[in-house]
Every structure is written in C-alpha cells, then in structure tokens.
C-alpha cells in the first residue's frame, strides 16, 4: 500500500495515496497506525484526500487505529473525506466516533 507519512508539530500525518481502501490493502494502514502508537506517538492524522472508495475492512482498520490511540492515551483524527467515503461513515454511524476535518490543515490546528 502506498502511504506517505509526514511529521508536523509532533503530529504524524499519514496520507493514504490509494484510490481504494479495502480488504486488499487496509491491513497495511492498520499496521502502520499500530506501529506509530506503539512507538509512543500520541497524535496521528489520517488524510483520505485520494481515497475514492472505502469498504468495511477500510472502516475497520480506522476503528482499530482509533482504539489503539485510546489505549495509548493518544489521538487519531481524519481529514479530507470525499463525499462517497463520508457517506459510508454516516451509514455505519462512524461519523459520530471520529473527529473528521475538511482538510489536513484544519485538522492540524485542532490537536
């Protein structure tokens, strides 16, 4: 899976550089978030700007990251969801769980 990671003001931003986040590649994102929290990082932002399609495995990977954040006293936030991707968060009520920002810049101001 193509992930680009940057650090800005002690916040790790993971840019998912894939059109699809599904059962084929979501395990990689899940592992990356787990690695960061286990390393002691506290603040992680996942930017989904390039993701046009997310399935239940992709949502599950993000839920796993969110739970990892909580158990490590950290924060996981999301940014730049495309409308169809956002509709899947709404269908599964996960928009009530995650803090979701329109852009990574806005998300970075809110950690």
């Amino acid at each position, binding site marked *: 899976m193509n992930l680009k990671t940057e650090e800005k003001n002690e916040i790790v931003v993971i840019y998912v550089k894939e059109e*699809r986040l599904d*059962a084929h590649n979501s395990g990689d994102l899940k592992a990356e978030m787990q690695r960061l929290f286990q390393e002691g990082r506290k603040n992680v932002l996942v930017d989904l700007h390039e993701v046009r*399609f997310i399935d*239940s*495995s992709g949502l599950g990977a993000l839920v796993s990251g969110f*739970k990892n954040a909580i158990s490590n006293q950290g924060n996981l936030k999301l940014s730049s969801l495309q409308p169809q991707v956002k509709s899947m968060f709404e269908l*599964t009520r996960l928009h009530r769980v995650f803090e979701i920002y329109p852009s990574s810049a806005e998300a970075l101001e809110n950690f």
Partner: protein
Amino acid sequence: MGNKKLEVDIKVPNQTRYLSLIGKIGEDIAKELDKFNGDRETLAYHLNMVLTEAMANAIKYANAGDPERMVHICISISTDEILIKVFDTGQGFDINAIPAPNFDKLEDRGRGIYIIKSLMDKVSYRKHGKGNVLEMAKKLT
C-alpha cells in the same frame, strides 16, 4: 441496452487483489444502464460497494482464504432490476445469524453484511450445489 436482459458472468481467483476489478465492473454497469433515471453515480458506488463486500466475504469466510479456489459472480440486469449472485464453494454461514452492528460498541469487523443489506433491496444466502450463493437484488425503477 434496451429491454434485453444483460448478463455478466465472471470467475476470479479467491484473492483480494481482484476486489477492485470486480467493483469496477459494477461501476461500469451502472454507468451503461439505458433506462435509469436515478442518481447514476450513487448507484455505481453502491454496486462497487456490495460487490466488494460480497466478494471479500466469500474469500475470507466462505472459501476460507484458499487462493486456489474461485469466486463466481453473475450480474443480471433487466429493465427494472439488477440481480447479483456471488457463488462460493465453502462451508457457508447463516446470514440471519449475523447480528446488526452495535453502533455504540467499536468493533473492527461486522459491518459488511449490514452495508450490503442497507444498500440492496433483497438479500439472501443459501445452499447451492456443493457450495452457496449470496443473492442481492436492487430495483432500478
């Protein structure tokens, strides 16, 4: 496509790398429908979604992750309905025994069947020959 029935029959290896191919076929079918007055982009996304979920389910649970097996998918389109059948050759599962997700409890898994049931009008899973078939129908009118 006129009033004729269109049928697309696909067999792909039991591997997640083929999910995007199958999803894309669903999207393209939605975009090619002649007589559909609804939101085409949304229908395309929903067909991509249910095909992806159904195939991922067949790979993981019904075909037990065996990469040598095949997943067989049949998509039939008539003027008023789209019917998708996903065949597997595994032990299967009881679709009615899968509970709806508990939205207050954060589980990593268990949203796939819920998504399929939410986006389609009729969903069933039953024994078929030596395996099983997941049938998902959506009205186009």
